[in-house]
């Protein structure tokens, strides 16, 4: 299971990088979404996977008696998803604004801040 998830992580990040190399600003954003999901999946896989074991310690024991998935990495992902979602909304508005300036979604044309001024 974890090797399958690792493979999916790799595919997601590869596809994200490919999309980020495009010139259309929305594709770059979609690339960002794919990579961020890939990263979240990687963290999930790092925290071990288990089908049924719960991370609850029985009375008197020091560890849960069945193999369990690490709940902390899932909490980390939750934080990362929330942050990623907020940033994505910001980026969508920014992309929309940036497209309006020169009526084009090509990032190569978004160069007004790098023109020479004398």
């Amino acid at each position, binding site marked *: 299971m974890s090797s399958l998830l690792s493979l999916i992580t790799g595919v997601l990040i590869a596809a994200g990088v490919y999309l*980020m190399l495009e010139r259309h*600003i929305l594709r*770059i954003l979609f690339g*960002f979404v794919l*990579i*961020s999901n890939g*990263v979240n999946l*990687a*963290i999930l*896989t*790092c*925290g071990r996977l288990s089908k049924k074991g719960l991370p609850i310690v029985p009375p008197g024991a020091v560890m849960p008696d069945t193999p369990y998935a*690490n709940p*902390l*990495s899932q909490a*980390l992902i939750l*934080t*990362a998803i929330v*942050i990623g979602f*907020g*940033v994505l909304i*910001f*980026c969508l508005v*920014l*992309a929309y*604004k*940036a497209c309006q*300036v*020169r009526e084009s979604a090509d*990032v190569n044309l*978004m*160069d*007004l*801040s*790098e023109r020479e*001024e*004398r």
Partner: protein
Amino acid sequence: MNWLLVLPVIIPLGGALFLYMLRKRTAIVTAVSWTTAGFGLTVGVMLMSLVIKQGPQAVSLGSWPAPYGIVFAADLFSAAMVLITWIIGLGIVIYSAADLKLKPSFANYQVLIQFLLVGVNGAFLTADLFNLYVWFEVMLIASFSLMMLDAGSIRIHGGVKYVFLNLISTLTLLLAIGLLYGATGMLNFAELHHKTANLSPGLIHILAGLFLFSFSVKSALFPLYAWLPASYHTLPSSVAALFAALLTKVGIYAVIRMFTLVFPFEGTGWQTVLIAVSGLTMLTGVLGAASQFTIKRILSFHIISQVGYIIIGIALYTRLAIAGSILYLIHHIIVKANLFLIGGFLNRKFGSDQLSKMGGVYRSFPFLAVLFMIPAFSLAGFPPLSGFWSKFAVIRASIETGHYWLAATALIVSVLTIYSMLKIWNEAFWKPDPADPVLTQVRPLSSREACLYLIPIATFALMTIIIGLAAEPFFRFADQAAMQLLEPADYIQAVLGEK
């Protein structure tokens, strides 16, 4: 629970919320933001004196014991960074009362400046890796919003580069944290210090590489600095000064903290790369500055070249080098903020940022000319100003470790720095004022405004001189801080409790 460690984060957070509620009343907004920054500075000074007297301090939030809960910790380096952040914060808040006064969203600028300070202070104080990521995000989102307030088309285009490149670095950081957690099961810096010693060298090499990449984007190292010169010059002067002083430095702080405490840098296999990168960062930054003709662009490129000097310290990884880095960091934050503030004042005076439209300041305003000379010469490293001593330390460290070409590059870059400072001097201060009275319709400067502009500028210039003339206590402090970083036993004990 020691409140002093948490207050540098809570004060600006409370201030920001308060400011947001009062945003309709401009007079109160100014008063509240000044008070907040004043409290912050007081707490910064108290924290500093506590850490100097009693060594590294730590506090577990919510009484979850380390290494499982989130811990805030301060050693000399953290405390110094928090203190300098608040010095800059107070200066910028005072300056912005004049500089941003007429912007439609003046109050929102003040709110977001406080939020930015929340993120910066949080990043300096946390002893938890994932928490560091969260503070980075707080800082980034505040800076994204500051960049987009009242943005015209040029700033939006600059913002696209800033936002997207920083997002890539953030995602890499998140990935690296996830993998490190998978490998060690820990996120606490002090506990990671023990755990990473058992990892295989190959794994350390890869993880350290991911962290280094991510922090390099944030601290604008060669070749990952493209976002900085594309965006900083589009910002209003006070915001540009704040970004220039603090944002890249948080990246450098993270590099230094990460590669002394979590992965001692010598064992990561990236030393040769980082030494080369520091030389190239210095050189490309200063060459970029030499080709520009507006003050903010010149200064933006100079941030990059100065970051190169600071990175030399961690790349060489000796006590002298790291002490030099810390001193350089403190000196650079003050000087760079001051130069941006002076640039902003000139911009306000001439209604333009272009050197060709300025002139005659030496004649019309000799006081400002003196104030400009102090940080400009300090940036280039003239004795006895602060830049000389910090440059002296890093260059001496590179000669001691046998990196002669690195020392040579650092010296050549100093010469090129003085070249672009002289360019600003010749154009803005020395040549006659080219102003055409019919064409230039700049609102005259009231004396209250001029005061608000000049108080922070004069204070920072004075601090530059003080660090330069009384270099020994400052250097001894940096040396102590470097020793705490290289032998982190006290920090680890403070974080993990008795061992």
